[in-house]
């Protein structure tokens, strides 16, 4: 019933045996103990579960783990370089782009994917790319500032 899959998670190769119906979010959280990504809506709308698969943001609540076999997965735990925070993490801290923090992992990873594609997006491009994540505490203004801060280098 279970299927062995191999993923490169935050730069390290890992092999897990998973049931074919389990989601990537479930496996990353439960099997790999990487709980930074959260379950929010379960239907690919809120962005809290966002992970990067081969550098592209996906809603891990709606991706089967077996479909990530052989791919590179990045989670929020993989963003910092040891004790050195990623520039986006630094900028989120500086501008106060979070309150409860439940959406933060999704925002950070989505912003990373955007900046990897386009290092200098304008405001409209940021709003469009980041439109799939909700921040219910209402930090959108600070999130814009934080992303601009990195995008404008």
């Amino acid at each position: 019933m279970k299927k062995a899959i191999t993923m490169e998670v935050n730069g390290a190769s890992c092999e897990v045996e998973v049931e074919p119906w389990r989601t990537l979010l479930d496996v990353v959280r439960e099997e790999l103990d990487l709980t930074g990504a959260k379950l929010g809506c379960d239907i690919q709308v809120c962005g809290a579960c966002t992970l990067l698969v081969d550098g592209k943001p996906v809603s891990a609540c709606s991706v089967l783990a077996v479909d990530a076999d052989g791919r590179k997965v990045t989670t929020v735990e993989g963003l910092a370089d040891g004790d050195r925070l990623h520039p986006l993490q630094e900028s989120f801290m500086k501008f106060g782009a979070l309150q409860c923090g439940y959406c933060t992992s999704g925002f950070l990873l989505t912003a990373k994917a955007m900046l990897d594609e386009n290092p200098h997006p304008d405001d409209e491009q940021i709003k469009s790319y980041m439109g799939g994540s909700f921040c219910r505490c209402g930090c959108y203004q600070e999130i814009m500032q934080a992303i601009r801060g990195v995008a404008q280098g």
Partner: protein
Amino acid sequence: MAISERPLSAQDGQRLDYQAKLTGRAAYLADMKMAGVCEGAILRSPVAHAWIRYVDASEALKVPGVVAVYTKDDVVQGTGIEPYYGPVFKDQTIVAVDKVRHVGDPVAAVAAETREAAEEAANLIVVEYEDLPPVMDVRDSVKEDATLVHETVRIPEHGFADLAELKPIENTNVCTHFKLRKGDIEQGFAECAHVFEDTFILPTTQHVALEPHGCIAAFQPDGRVNLWSTTQNPFVVRTQLANIFKMPVSKIRIMVPYLGGGYGSKVYPKIEPLTMALAQKAKRPVRILLSREEVFYTVTKHAAFIRMKTGVRADGSFHAREAEVFLDTGAFAEIGPRVAKKSAYTAAGPYKFKHVKIDAKSVYTNKPPAGAFRGFGVSQSAWASESQTDIIAKALGRDPYELRMQNIYDEGDEFVTGEKLWSIGVKGCLEKVAQEMKWGEPMPAPDDPSKVRGRGLAALIKATITPSISCAAIKLNEDGSVNVFTSTVEMGQGSDTAMAAIVADTLGIPLEQVSVLGVDTDVVPYDLTTSSSRSTFHMGKALELASLDLCEQLRRFVSEEHGVPFEETRMEGGRVLFRENALTIREVLFNHFGMQGGTLVGRGEVKTSTVDPETGDKTTSSFWFVGAGGSEVEIDKDTGRLRVLKHATAVDVGRVITPLGCQQQLVGGAITGLGQALFEQMVWDNGILVNPNLVDYVLPALGDMPDEITPIAVEVPHKNGPFGAKGIGETSLIPVAPSIANAVDDAVGVRINDLPVTAEKIFLGMLDKS
């Protein structure tokens, strides 16, 4: 623009929770692991109103991995528990016993080795219902022939002091009826040159904290129970659990990790009673994590229907206000009676009416229970009051800002209850907002000729929960660092940082020397609740007092050990000063204990009362929230499409404690208000909730933001707040919706009386006019 020019000295703008939250290492409830835990699943009612004829769980028990099934038989005949509970009235049961009262009402629950097995088993439980007609609107529910949601309602022996006079009205669906009277309303209207009557409607909405509710319950071999829960008020939940399970509170330990948002959705018992009951029956730890859909069935914001009649004298002074506020509290009272009461207090707005007659009713319907929601009843009454203020201004040809300023409260004015208002910077807030919105200046023409712009204002006053209690303790360690013991729940509002800053500033030590312990009811002293925007004022003050208690103990040691009169010692910059000497905290402790070791405990408590201890006057609220908001909108004349270009929000914060936290609360509250104003509503069809998901229930996203939301902190200090600070969590939300509706009217002359303000309503309004 900095929100404050004079933050506390311990404030460097950093939040204590950021490192963990930014790196994915902050532990929320769903991130916890526990050996041997069973997963729980809940079977919920598919119908809005029905008698339960029988529940048959025999097939569920056969599912491999099932450990226990909990049904009404367990509630009634089970383990000697008290079947009925609820924070105000005992109208809730752990699972439905005789009736289901809303779609999603829990009917049974299963504990199993896996979530899949629990869900499969729950779906195999057979329930036979005998349908009853559902009542889905307060206007139907209060009719004489309406089907009763509750045949009887049980009153608890020890209820909340502020709600003691409120009782359900027998043989009706009226849960409570609160009356507020001032002057003579009929005489008041007779003295007026103009009388206005309007009705206003708000739909049911949901908080949508991104983290759904969750709970883990684990009984210990000695009969004690540990719970981890997503609760904003662990001590209230502990009391309720103690009553249900007939246990002393000392045996119920509730721990609260970081919450992924609350906004009122996580106060009072939610799934804790069911999780604990299931764990008791399963004799295993049980974890229940709600799905997004289940959250919509767990708690909502009160829908409202409001009739408002206002008399204005020839000179424009507000004279008589009559209002009937119907708040839809859903299937259970929950905290609805207090929501209605708070709504009543502010139904006359922040204005000096001479004659007031308010009737606020919380009304049962067959919707999920409505409870606390950021704004707590005031969003509802302010929607009516602030919309009508502009209706009046327009009819009288008055400027809405000038009309408000003519009637607004000032220091020492008399409130509708007869008490005097102090520390009440609402006038300053309105002034600042008007300036920021360039009120009175001509509106710049939009680039696109098919669009038109307008501006609108709104102001508010709101009470905080009174009486209430906050107790706190601080442990001073041998090296001069401190551990802070507080039950204020960090749910995103930045309370850990604010509390630490208050302690650090009072003791005169760096912020890095302060650690805030998480909430654990076995360890931290009692606090009523993290809600009602009360924590900075109450818990912050308790911590200031606890810090001062430590200062006094240190000074006493120095006084005794050095033979200096106590009055000649003082504490400054983390040192005890006497004569020409200065001793560090560490040195004082070393001298006192004779070695590197020992602990001092500082204690502080704040208890507020409905009677002012100094003057004997009535005090409805230990302090008042006041503020104002302004919106500028642009409307497409062809489609009615609305965009909010700018919003400014001014809040009387008393004193800024943490500038970043203050900015986040003011702007964040406004964004929640934006969702309530423009998008959010739960929609029913024949008792069924049509949109319990985040595709069909629309939340504001980044692209919906105005170009600018400007937070303005007005600082009118309060004598009882720490450093003069007051609460700030809810104020900025409340003026958003009416300021937008007023701006829409300013732009296109269309008045929207029912929320949300949608393009469709604006379009139809424009069509009507042409």
